[in-house]
């Protein structure tokens, strides 16, 4: 069905050093627990996918991780640092990079300018008041651009890019932040089949060198990119395991009974 080799990476390559941990993470909106008691650990170099039906709490979980939403209870730890409630900007600086579901890039700016805003690690007002924007990409910027296939369009305005390119641009921006963990919300949403293939390949390339947490509901895409899946259901973690384990898991099958998500896989 696709040309991408689903190379098997042994668990030995996946470090066991936890990069991101949540402790009893819970958020309640008017008493309704959108995310309920989630204990999630993502290890270094891992490519983890979270799946679940609409409303299962996947995106809310990402919002909690990047500080967009404050948890009602529980904590988020990045390595040995508690990043709960320190604010979005501080969380981003400490090493959490997030890509949103709809491409959120600065459309009036060129691709290179977008990357430059993202890759700049000196974020203070006065540090930036007394520094100029270099006309050429830095090594990091050039590297992420070539990784995402944007090298040829660096001087184009982002508004001139295709939807797929916008998604890659945002991914490139997140990567140029040099984050400890990359959070991706449906990175292949709205892409053509060819673009989806390219994205899958990109994510496989990233695994190992980067720690990546992906939210996805396209099961075919999920099976191509990952070894370990976390299933969310009604705000809680229902199961964790490889794709085949998840498909055989009775609880998961029951939770998804009648849902197209797994049956199309």
């Amino acid at each position, binding site marked *: 069905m696709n040309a991408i080799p689903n190379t098997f990476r042994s668990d030995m390559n996946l470090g066991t050093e936890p990069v991101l941990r949540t402790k009893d993470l819970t958020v309640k909106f008017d008493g309704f627990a959108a995310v309920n008691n989630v204990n999630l650990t993502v290890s270094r170099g891992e490519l983890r996918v979270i799946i679940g039906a609409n409303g299962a709490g996947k995106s809310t979980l990402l919002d909690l991780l990047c500080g967009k939403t404050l948890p009602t209870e529980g904590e988020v730890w990045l390595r040995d640092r508690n990043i709960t409630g320190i604010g*979005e*900007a501080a969380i981003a600086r400490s090493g959490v990079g*997030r890509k949103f579901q709809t491409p959120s890039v*600065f459309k009036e700016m060129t691709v290179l300018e977008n990357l430059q*805003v*993202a890759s700049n690690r000196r974020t*203070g007002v006065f540090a*930036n008041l007394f520094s100029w924007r270099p006309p050429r990409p830095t090594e990091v910027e050039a590297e992420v651009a070539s990784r995402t296939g944007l090298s040829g369009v660096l001087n184009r305005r982002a508004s001139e890019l295709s939807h797929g390119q916008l998604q890659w641009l945002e991914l490139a921006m997140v990567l140029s932040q040099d984050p400890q963990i990359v959070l991706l919300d449906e990175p292949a949403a709205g892409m053509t089949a060819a673009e989806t293939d390219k994205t899958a390949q990109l994510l496989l390339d990233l695994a190992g060198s980067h720690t990546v947490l992906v939210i996805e509901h396209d099961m075919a895409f999920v099976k191509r990119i990952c070894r370990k899946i976390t299933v969310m259901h009604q705000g809680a973690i229902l199961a964790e395991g490889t794709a085949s384990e998840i498909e055989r898991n009775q609880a998961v099958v029951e939770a998804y009974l009648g849902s197209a998500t797994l049956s199309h896989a």
Partner: protein
Amino acid sequence: MKERTITFAAYLLFFAVVFALPLALNSFWTNRIAVYLVYAICAVGISLSWGYAGILSLGQGLFFGIGAYMIAMSLTLAVPDNNPVPQFMLLNMEPNALRDLCCVTPGSFLWEPFRYLSIGILAGIVVPCVIAAALGYVMFKRRTSGVYVSIITLALALIGQMLIINNQPLTGGFNGLADLAPLSVGGVEFDPYGKSVYYLVAAVLLIVVLLSRLVVSTRLGHVLKAVREDDSRVRYLGYNVESYKLFIYCLSAAVAGVAGLLFAVTSEFASPSLMSTSFSISMVIWAALGGRGSLLGACVGALIVNFIGSVASENAALQPVWPIVLGLMFVLVVLVMPEGIAGIAKSWVAKPRQPRSLKEVTQ
């Protein structure tokens, strides 16, 4: 590269015209155009906060007015008749109060430091900055944005206006301060109707434009551009968006303060009407018509609108219609040409760029 050359040429042309104009003007028009150049400085302030960071302040008049009042206080005290106390204070004093600035009217001691012109000038820049910092800190910390910022700043300008009107013994109230000495620095006297004030204003405009241009072309200006487009996205890239907004808002307040200083010098008065809602909104209209995203455009907007307005006000038939025309022009600009005059100029200059190859399209 080519676009940069054209931009540079445009700036050069503008300032060449500005500096050459007095050669062809009588003293009345020299003074009028000097006032319009003051307004152009104001428009640059609006362009900085609104055009470059998306913060639409409808209360720039507050900062402008404060700038004007601060130097007007010094210039009031510089009139020999106003020593030791300004005339209006004598009209408002208690019958047996001491005729000294310390206690002639309640609060008159606040005038004491303004005996020094340098303090008047400094205060005209620092006070707007401090007020903007305090207000901005509260607003941006709470993530107030968009129309709410406009409403809050508008309300604050109204409060400022009320405070001035209602404290006549201290401020001259509704009449403002109109009995001013000409500005005199280091033995050089600046005549409001002569070329000296004109060139003073023109030089300050040039400096303000160049400095603003410098600021927006740094990395900071770059981050601000991103903030204008999507401030929450910038936050997830690790920037404290609030600090950036605060910085540019204070800068635009300082620029408005500088304009206020020069206004008092050029027009020889400061009055509460400078803090009126309609005046603050006028400033926004100048910037919008000229092109808020362009510093030069904002300058040109201020000059054109005020020049036409002045011509219209001398014509009995046009005078009542002009505010309506101006309002309609603003609506038109907002709806049809959000980049203003500068946007039109740019689209004339820039040819649509063709993709270099088919590969670039399909990539």
